[in-house]
């Protein structure tokens, strides 16, 4: 039941934080923006192979670290703080679905590659499922899909008859086309997936349940990334408020600035507590996980947008320049907010959970 991180978790957080500072500082993101690459291959190899982040929730039998969701949340918080671009979220969601399905064959075939980072996998889920499966072939369009253009395998939810299924689709499959989009968030790579009679392998297991879990996992993972980025944007602003002077005083001495930052810190503390709770619930209280993850996501989403807005505004003119990192956080905040269900959708979902519970 404890919310506070234990010593091991703290240590792990430190190691990820060091990794971000040393191997993937924000200057790396500027390189990606200039080159048009979705992420740095070497950074990804270090994250996955070196730190093992790609296999945190994957059982040891498939080559994963089997470290659990609390540790995953810790890692994503640090990566989010650094706006590290990688296919980790895509692969984690794909792994989450595979783990909740009941397809030993697919698990054995895909999880080891996801765990090692060699296989880029993604889950083609966005809003309501509209792809149709007809006699084993899939037709429809899904957007936005994380790392769609880099994925070697896509897990595609599709409607078949009266029910829903999850299908494994190879990137090279005939009839599949992927169009990369100019993601608003420079640290995110997304694309549109079009399926025109694509052969998909149906995966065994309760697809509705697995996809429900994927949405909860997306909430947890995004909340972690958002909380990390929220904290980083806020810290950047607080530090600036200490050194920037106006009217003969550091601007942080003015209540107009001080109180706004205090409000944001308060929001951050609440969102932080909610995230810790959701991560614990994933490991320890599965029945409460959906509600806890929705609470974490709802607690952080709009507050992070407000924080990123403040980061631009309280930096004054300089916060509006391309060279300053404030806009990276602002774009990230707005984009994160819309992924896998915006705040309104999350509240609708939470309300349903509460009324049912």
């Amino acid at each position, binding site marked *: 039941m*404890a*919310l*506070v991180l234990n010593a091991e978790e703290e240590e792990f957080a430190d190691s990820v934080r060091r990794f971000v500072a040393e191997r993937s500082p924000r200057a790396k993101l500027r390189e990606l923006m200039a080159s048009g690459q979705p992420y740095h291959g070497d950074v990804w190899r270090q994250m996955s192979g070196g730190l093992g982040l790609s296999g945190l929730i994957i059982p040891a039998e498939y080559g994963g670290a089997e470290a659990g969701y609390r540790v995953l949340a810790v890692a994503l918080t640090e990566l989010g703080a650094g706006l590290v671009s990688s296919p980790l979220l895509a692969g984690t969601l794909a792994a989450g679905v595979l783990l909740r399905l009941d397809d030993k064959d697919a698990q054995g075939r895909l999880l080891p590659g996801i765990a090692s980072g060699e296989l880029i996998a993604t889950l083609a889920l966005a809003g309501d499922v509209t792809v149709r499966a007809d006699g084993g072939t899939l037709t429809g369009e899904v957007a936005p899909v994380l790392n769609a253009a880099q994925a070697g395998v896509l897990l595609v939810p599709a409607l078949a008859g009266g029910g829903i299924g999850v299908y494994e689709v190879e990137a090279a499959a005939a009839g599949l086309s992927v169009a990369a989009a100019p993601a608003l968030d420079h640290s995110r790579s997304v694309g549109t997936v079009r399926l025109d009679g694509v052969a998909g392998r149906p995966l065994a297991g309760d697809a509705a349940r697995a996809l429900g879990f994927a949405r909860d996992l997306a909430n947890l993972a995004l909340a972690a990334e958002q909380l990390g980025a929220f904290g980083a944007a806020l810290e950047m602003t*607080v530090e600036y*408020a*200490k050194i920037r002077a106006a009217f003969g*005083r*550091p601007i*942080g*001495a003015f*209540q107009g*600035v*001080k*109180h706004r*930052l*205090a*409000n944001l*810190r*308060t929001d951050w*503390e*609440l*969102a*932080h*507590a*909610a995230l*810790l*709770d959701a991560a614990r619930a994933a490991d320890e209280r599965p029945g409460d996980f959906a509600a806890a993850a*929705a*609470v974490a996501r*709802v*607690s952080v989403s709009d507050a992070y947008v407000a924080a990123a807005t403040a980061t631009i505004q309280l930096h004054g003119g300089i916060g509006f320049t391309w060279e300053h990192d404030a806009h990276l956080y602002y774009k990230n905040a707005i984009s994160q907010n819309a992924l896998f269900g915006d705040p*309104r959708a999350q*509240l*609708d979902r*939470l*309300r349903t959970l*509460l009324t049912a519970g």
Partner: protein
Amino acid sequence: MSEQSVTSFRDRARSWLAANAPRRSDAQEPDGEPQAAGVAAQREFQAKLYDAGFAGITWPKEYGGQGLTNAEQIAFGEEARGYALPTGVFFIGLGMPGPTILEMGSEAQKKRYLPKMLRGEEIWCQLFSEPAAGSDVASLTTSAVRDGDEWLLNGQKVWTSGAQWSDYGAIIARTDPTVPKHNGITMFIVDMHAPGVTVRPLKVATGSSPFNEVFFDNVRLPAGSVIGEVNNGWAAAVVMLRNERVTIGTMGSPRTSPLSYHSLSALAARLGTGADVEVARRLARLYARERSVRLFGQLLREEAMAGRDPGARGSVAKLAGAELAMSACEVAEAVLGQAVVAGGAGDPEIDAVIMAVIGSPGSSVAGGTNEIQRNIIGERVLGLAKDPGVDRGTPFNQLRVGTLNTK
């Protein structure tokens, strides 16, 4: 402490509570203070609690406590969560004056007052707020003037909870007006039954009188009344105020509060206003906010248990709690819809919600305004520069205070 001893303490608490304490009911709890009629019963219950070894769990044995650790205290709190312990009148004494006397009081004070406080024999209140001081607590004008070994107390306090049934109070008064405001304050013990003490109920916006005004007219404080040192009362007051903030902030609102998600969503279902998508979302957001505030309180307690000082982050809890209450008011208004116009009109559930809405803006000020909390968070949590106060170096008697010196 051994883990085993905590477990056995917990087991003992569990069975004692099951046998002796009333369960928390799901029904609406009465808002505000216990009625005078209940005070005797509360004294009795506190005595039973004491006899069973559950009063003053972490206080030293020589002053009537149990001499145990935070672990036992928390274990008891967890076990007691499902019960509505009838000990409200002791809440302030045991939470604020008690620990302060324990830390700063003389040996004689500790021996004289603490055991009786724990046994429920004497009820305490805290006398800090003044009409002209408000958020700027340290600008208080109640004065205590030395008269031999004794002191003569004059002035007025306000917003004093429980003054009407208190036996003693911890009061701060100005003992030197010629030095800057923080340096001329002393904390005293005052006998609330002494001649010259007048307690008057204070009627608030809801029409009820949950607080008092207390007037001191040449009240004589005997020798030995000073808590700590003369002119060093502000340090003690700060500790008390900080405790108060953490207490208010981390209490959380019970499920049964009229402004809780639980209550409001039930009311929305009954009135049909919850069918509106936006109202339903606001309720869900209230749930999320309530839960995150509660979780943050839990986190602070866990950190305290792990030996980390929550420090100024108690102000985060206080601010979050006050803002939760105000956002709950907005949700309540949406849930009530037209029902608010007729002021409840005899429906007790609606009445309770309306009274809570009316009371919230005022209550949010108690324990320090949001502005004060934001200053504390900005300066002591975030490390931002302080406001260049003009009042820190100025002798108190040259300072603008309240609305007195402005006309």
